[in-house]
């Protein structure tokens, strides 16, 4: 467990995740108050990564539940293993016959079976899905509920019981309480507003695109071979591009892909041609690429102009 806010920063830092104090405070509170953390923000700013890294930093098992439309209890919580139950009844046919031998009437036989049905509805035949697994695991774990906004409103309501009491009710068995309260991280892309009831039970964390310095640090950490100048130019450029009105704003992960591509191509400095060829790693829509390209052209032109005024000596070196 973390002991202080600074502890969180170093702990996550050791897992190559750079976070600011703001994030660290929320994470620290989440671990101490045992409250779920709801992480919101645009795609690709490291929301899911935060959950993964947390598990690593704390040395806990990561249990992940990916949400989607139509996700229901059977997939998220538990399911009875029908096939196994059936197989057992088949194998135990003789034994059942033995048990029923003394019964006279059909009614007696049913009563007799009814006395035994606990055997078939027990933990043995319960197939735990992520949520139940997180509750019942012997070690404390990190439960990552990814893209919770993609799930239906009904599923969200169903999550409430687990998030507030850390217990669930299986009708055939009874109420199962968590052995260890898992650290829950929920991520949301805000494709729909989560209900107030859910939000009330969570600590809220809004992750946004990082500021230039932090982004620079992230690039250097994740792409070790990158040159200083290239990293700096990429960051400057991206902050301009993000201001454009795009269908999908380039995120950190896309930035990293782009930088990796540029490093592989052994680029030291951005220029028009290479931008054109590699832009598809950064942008996902044709219209976006066109818009971004205009911006990049302007950027390169500006830089050239700046270098021109700063003296010709620099130019000579480049040739």
């Amino acid at each position, binding site marked *: 467990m973390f002991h202080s806010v600074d502890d969180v920063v170093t702990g996550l830092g050791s897992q190559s995740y750079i976070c600011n104090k703001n994030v660290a405070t929320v994470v620290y*509170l989440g671990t101490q108050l045992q409250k779920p953390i709801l992480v919101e923000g645009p795609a690709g700013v490291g929301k899911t990564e935060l959950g993964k890294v947390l598990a690593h930093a704390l040395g806990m098992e990561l249990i992940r539940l990916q949400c989607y439309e139509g996700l229901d209890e059977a997939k998220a919580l538990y399911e009875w293993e029908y096939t196994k139950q059936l197989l057992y009844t088949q194998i135990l046919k003789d034994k059942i016959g033995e048990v029923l031998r003394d019964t006279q009437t059909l009614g007696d036989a049913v009563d007799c079976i009814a006395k035994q049905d606990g055997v078939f509805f027990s933990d043995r035949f319960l197939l735990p899905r992520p949520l139940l697994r997180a509750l019942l695991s012997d070690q404390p774990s990190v439960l990552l509920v990814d893209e919770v906004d993609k799930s239906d409103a009904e599923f969200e309501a169903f999550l409430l019981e687990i998030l507030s009491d850390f217990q669930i009710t299986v009708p055939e068995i009874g109420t199962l309480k968590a052995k260890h309260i898992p650290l829950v991280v929920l991520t949301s892309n805000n494709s729909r507003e989560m209900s*107030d009831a859910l939000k009330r039970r969570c600590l809220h964390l809004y992750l946004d695109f990082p500021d230039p310095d932090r982004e620079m640090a992230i690039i250097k950490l994740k792409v070790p071979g990158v040159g200083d100048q290239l990293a700096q130019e990429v960051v400057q450029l991206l902050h301009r591009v993000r201001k454009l*009105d795009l269908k999908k704003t380039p995120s950190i992960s896309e930035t990293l892909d782009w930088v990796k591509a540029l490093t592989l191509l052994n680029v030291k400095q951005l220029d028009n041609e290479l931008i054109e060829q590699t832009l598809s790693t950064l942008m996902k829509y044709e219209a976006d690429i066109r818009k971004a390209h205009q911006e990049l052209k302007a950027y390169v032109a500006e830089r050239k102009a700046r270098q021109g005024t700063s003296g010709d000596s620099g130019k000579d070196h480049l040739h």
Partner: protein
Amino acid sequence: MEDRIVEFANVLRRNGVRVSLSENIDAFRALRLIGIRDPFLFRNTLRATLVKRASDVKPFEELFDFFFLGIGQAIDALERRMMEELGLTPEQFQKMLDQIQKLLKEMEGELSPLTRALLTGNRGELERLLREAANKEWEAGSSDRFRLTPYTLMAARLQMDRVHSEIERFKAMLQMLAESGEDLQNVMRYLDERMRDLTRLLREIIQQEQRKRGAEPNDYSQRSSFADKSFSFYTEDDIRRMNEAVARLAQRLKDRLSVRRKKALRGRFNVKATLRRNLQYGGVPFHVELDRRKKTKPQVMILCDISDSVLNASRFMLQFVYSVQDLYAKVRSFVFVSDLGEVTKLFEEEELHRAVETALKGDVIDVFSHSNFGRAFELFFKNYFPSVTGKTTVLIIGDGRNNYNRPNEWVLREIQQKAKQLIWLNPESRITWGVGDSEMPRYVPYCDVAEECRNINQLYKVVDLIVP
């Protein structure tokens, strides 16, 4: 401290941030862990526990600033200005304050605490006194506030005249002592300036209190009146708020859809499918197969009038159209004045505001001509009628003011016969339908539904009609 946080939560609530009791409790528990020594962590902690929506972060930051730093910030600023004006370094300034304190002690008679705090630069004390007075003033209620400005009342409560006279007395005493000229000049200027500072601080704190106490209309009442306000009276600000309303509307549409999906999960028992599915279990029916009701996605064709007479309404309606198109796959949108143009593609590709602006600007069709519903309908019939099917809902948005052109109501008859339903939304009041060049009486008989739709509440009702 607890009181302050509860108060702060109230302030947040009054400014439209949703803070419930459990969030308050969280804040307390968190603060017990974090402590309140580090201002940065303090702020982060409150934000993480009290604010639950990304859009609430900004109001939180603003309110935090003036609630916790509040008047203290103003005092700091005034002090800095004072030093600059007198041309003193912080050390020299402090020396002067010490000197004044010494002199104050020699002064005869009782000094009011406010004067003392003000002159000796005791920031904490000054802030406390001002806030206390403000609190008392607001608790006292409004009965005695009749025709008096809050400023006058506060000045009276703080005994400003007493402070004033005390400072004057102090000045007279200094002149009697008549120490070295240069210093005296500075001190005199300092005292005058201080008196003015107090006035400024008073104004500042009144302003803050008014905001805190919700002298501004609170969010809820604003919203409800906004929902009933006619589109044609929208101000710039209202137009900006429309976005939020439209987003809520879209949410409502989505909610309806998900309810329908849930209903689709029930259905009649299907023997054949059940048997087939359960073959793997030796015919023991573990999984029951049901005949699922088919989800019918609405096919909508929207015709929106964007002539000058309904400009505000059509701006709103286009936003609405945009979000409808976002939700359903089969929506085709058209705008018309006299010509008719399809904007489906534009709405698909462009971001909301730009799409709406482009549609209104006249890039799609000529917006400066006179409305001619008859011609637009005829064009629709000629070019797009084949795509109307039995499943289509046709939605016409317009005031029906035809400038005495041919109404061509036969087009509506054709549409009604072929389409699932024909809905007309009119941003004009029902009373005026048929008055002047309004052709509504001719059109209404062919509409399955014709509603006036002048504000958001009425639009909400219409949504229920489109999505059954």
